[in-house]
């Protein structure tokens, strides 16, 4: 369990993390979602005691991370920057980690096998591809078989098979009753991986709810209606108090489900060419939610 209270980090007078409160519960995958620069990595560094909070506090399993005599046995973390010396082999990287926390060396071989790096364990980490480096980072996070696992953008650089592997690993860890905290800036990824979502934007929590609730609340739906006599159809639907938006030759209707809309139109002797329930994607929901809090906007329009 991870608990943050009023957690704040200020860099050069600017709040990277702005008084956030949240709890990450065991037994489920909690997604930590936010656009670039939202404060995800900063929050994770504060959890590990690497960066000191400007204000507030964060505890892991009820105490400060730094007060643990063998922290790798309590929290395993994959950090954003590859914290690996390029001249050291994967095995030796895991060996020094194991030694530092009194973890038996036999565990090194186990985690290497678990992440599929056993055949390249003797190779220098500097030669590793992005994906192999990511796997080594995950091996390092799991070396102490910790009850809390924290992964900062774990699927970065992974191929589809690797992405699926991380997803099932997170699931398995949560099913084993562990606390799993995974950051990402991709809603689509979180939709597949997380049970619970904490959305952060510009250092502030924007949403903290089960994934299902988040989807129900934010992923809006409408019924697309296409009909030859669309003005008559529109008048009919509006007359019934429904919310209708016209986009080109289609009508977007909210307030009634698709079968009822179809019956209503058919009952008035009008023809239908299309009747479809359209769910806006979670990605859209996320974009909408964080629109005001995106730190770095790409310029898509050319100035007039």
């Amino acid at each position, binding site marked *: 369990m991870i608990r943050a209270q009023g957690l704040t980090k200020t860099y050069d007078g600017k709040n990277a993390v702005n008084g956030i409160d949240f709890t990450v519960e065991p037994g489920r995958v909690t997604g930590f979602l936010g656009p670039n620069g939202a404060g995800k990595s900063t929050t994770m*560094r504060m959890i*590990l*005691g*690497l*960066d*000191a909070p400007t204000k507030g506090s964060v505890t892991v399993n009820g105490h400060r*991370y*730094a*007060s*643990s*005599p*063998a*922290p*790798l*046995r*309590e*929290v395993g*973390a994959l*950090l954003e*920057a*590859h*914290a*690996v*010396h*390029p*001249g*050291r*082999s994967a095995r*030796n990287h895991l*060996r*020094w*980690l194991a*030694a*530092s*926390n*009194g*973890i*038996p060396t*036999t*565990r090194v071989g*186990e985690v290497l096998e*678990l992440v599929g790096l056993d055949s390249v364990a003797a190779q220098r980490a500097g030669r590793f591809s992005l994906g192999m480096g990511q796997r080594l980072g995950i091996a*390092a996070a799991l070396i*102490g*078989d910790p009850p809390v696992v924290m992964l900062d953008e774990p699927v970065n650089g992974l191929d589809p098979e690797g992405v699926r592997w991380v997803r099932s690993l997170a699931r398995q860890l949560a099913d084993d009753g562990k606390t799993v905290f995974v950051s990402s800036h991709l809603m689509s990824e979180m939709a597949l991986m997380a049970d619970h979502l904490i959305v952060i934007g510009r250092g502030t929590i924007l949403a903290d709810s089960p994934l299902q609730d988040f989807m129900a609340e934010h992923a809006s739906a409408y019924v697309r209606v296409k009909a030859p006599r669309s003005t008559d159809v529109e008048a009919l639907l509006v007359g019934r108090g429904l919310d209708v938006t016209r986009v080109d030759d289609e009508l977007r209707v909210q307030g009634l489900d698709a079968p009822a809309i179809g019956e209503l139109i058919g009952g008035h002797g009008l023809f239908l060419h299309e009747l479809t329930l359209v769910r806006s994607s979670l990605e859209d929901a996320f974009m909408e939610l964080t629109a005001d809090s995106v730190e770095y906007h790409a310029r898509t329009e050319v100035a007039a």
Partner: protein
Amino acid sequence: MTALAAPPTNASLGRTVRSEWVKLSSIRSTWWTALAMVVLGAGFTTIISGIAAGDIASGKSHDSPGEYITQGLIFSQISAVVIGALVVTSEYGTGMIRATLAATPVRSRVLAAKAIVVSGFLFVVGVVTAFLGYFGGNAFFRSERVGISLGDEHMLRSMFGAGLYMAGLGLLAGAIGLLVRHTAAAISIVLALVFIIGQVVQLIPGTVGEWVMKLMPGNAGPGIVVPVSFGDNMLSPWTGFAVFVGEIALLGLAGLALFQKRDA
């Protein structure tokens, strides 16, 4: 998967030391640099002694063999500085410092372990270098019948002093590394301090310049390495070394203070 035994309930410096030793010894450059230290140090001592032996034996030179028998170690200093600096700065260059501090959050313990490992390693390599240099160089002196014995005055102090001085230099470089957190900067600063600034300060006129020079780390420290001092403008060996240790301690404490305070 085997279940791990119960986690240790108390943190221990021993585990951190073991971990730091795995780090240091699992990097190839550590061993290449150590080899350079031995080869350069012992090699140059042998060559310089070979050149001097004839003149000393014939009376053309009034120097003593003891002035030459550790001379090559001047070059070994570079390796000690490189190893000492890298132990700290390579962690910043690679971002590994975060993994280190996540594994061992007590920062003073991380520094203590690094200091123990790097100074122990450099002590051993320094002593080996000094002895090999002695055997190589003394072979020439002996063949000219001016050989010296390890039992001669100050000889053993000099052999083991070489290890102490190399260990100290490594710690000095590590301390500077903590302050600047950059490999090239740390190495350049320490090498400049030892090889250039230590000499340039002679230009300061009067006794001030004399004292500043005596107190510079690269001048105060190596007094314990040479069995027969070749200049009289030096502190006595152990006084000099005490000054050197004091300087390391000051820089080390400054580095520790910053290390404790800064975000990783």
